[in-house]
């Protein structure tokens, strides 16, 4: 069975998570990442609303209205989980205890600047905990479609939308490729099967340095 583009990105993102990590997954495609975390490792998923140790979705009829993830949906708590207030929840993030966060993006640029909270005049949802996560997680991985619906690149030379945080992103995973943010610029490191370097470059506004060790991602 083939995975869809969203699942492929989520699966690749899950490979960034190691045993013992404290992880926060954003809304959307990042949420899917939890389905692909290796069963052989122990991780704790952090939820902004005051839970460390998110468990699987509860069975229908077994939902607890007071046990909810940050996306507003019922969840469970794993063994060893803890509850805390919102100040403590963000203390965990700001103090550097969060190993990795996987977030979506509206735009991300060559320097690792991230814009994902507002389109002025159009969509003004607010940043929620996004700025805290982007600024202070030890590693910020972005999972996003490579282009907007109109075909324009989301991987920019310079973000034009208001920033969530400056120079915070380490790795960008799209349905086409995996790119690392380095001091020299964006390095194209991996291609999903079926894509070409030419296609990625043509769909990317940012400059790309093609890695000497470029590899093809083949799942299944």
């Amino acid at each position, binding site marked *: 069975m083939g995975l869809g583009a969203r699942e492929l990105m989520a699966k690749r993102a899950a490979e960034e998570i190691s045993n013992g990590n404290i992880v926060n997954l954003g809304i959307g495609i990042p949420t899917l990442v939890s389905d692909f975390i290796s069963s052989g490792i122990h991780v704790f998923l952090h939820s902004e609303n005051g839970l460390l140790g998110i468990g699987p979705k509860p069975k229908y009829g077994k939902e607890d209205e007071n046990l909810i993830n940050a996306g507003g949906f019922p969840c469970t708590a794993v063994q060893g989980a803890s509850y805390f207030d919102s100040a403590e929840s963000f203390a965990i*993030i700001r103090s550097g205890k969060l190993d990795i966060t996987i977030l979506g993006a509206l735009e991300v640029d060559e320097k690792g600047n991230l814009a994902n909270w507002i389109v002025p005049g159009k969509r*003004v949802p607010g940043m929620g905990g996004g700025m805290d996560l982007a600024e202070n997680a030890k590693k910020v991985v972005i999972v996003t479609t490579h282009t907007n619906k109109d075909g324009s690149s989301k991987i920019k030379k310079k973000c034009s939308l208001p920033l969530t945080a400056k120079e915070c992103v380490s790795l960008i995973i799209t349905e086409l490729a995996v790119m690392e943010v380095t001091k020299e610029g964006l390095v194209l490191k991996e291609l999903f099967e079926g894509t070409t370097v030419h296609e990625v470059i043509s769909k990317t506004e940012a400059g790309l340095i093609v890695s000497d060790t470029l590899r093809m991602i083949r799942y299944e």
Partner: protein
Amino acid sequence: MAIENVFGKIKEVDEAMTHINDHTVLMYGGFGGVGTSPLLINEIVKKNVKDLTLIGNDSGFPQIGIGRVICNGQAKKMITTHIGSNPVAGQLMTEGKLEIEFSPQGTLAERVRAGGTGLGGVLINVGLGTVIEKGKETIKVDGKTYLLEKPLRADVGIIYAKAADPFGNLIYDKTARNFNPLVAMASDVTIVHAEEIVPLGELDPEEIITPGVYVDIIVTGEGGKWKWVWEQEN
């Protein structure tokens, strides 16, 4: 066992509501409505007080949590982190009927906490290089740059607790804790809706999350319960 109201904090909802009036600065616990008191929200909507300034994590959903108060046109200003789940809040903002000040979530939590703990502000790196920086002082400490974020306090805070004793010692339920303990500290009048009021001594001092010293009024009662979005989808 009968509950002795030895501290006089246990009150009828009507008496508690005399503190919430036009122009009240109101802080509320809750995250997407989870941990927001259905009873007190219902009473605020019924009383139909106007020009409230609301301080809390998010704008709830149109029929859930603080969202009900917003949709009823009772707020003139909000200090919050997210309004995405309540389209009416966005619409009122666009129409210029609701002023919104966004604060990053951890920053909002610490601003409320600072208000509640007698601190003059907090130094936070979140928002540096973004629009959040506008109009704020930056301060360098040991070579690192921070934004000076000012404390927040409210006239009235509304809290939703799992249980309260007559002194107002509180415990919460799972993720319904969120902003509640912070709001309890940062309000001139802290009104708790407790699902259950238990006799003094029944809560283990080791498990109490909010010491009763922060609590002024305790109410209990049904009413105002909403259907969650995930219940409607099922």
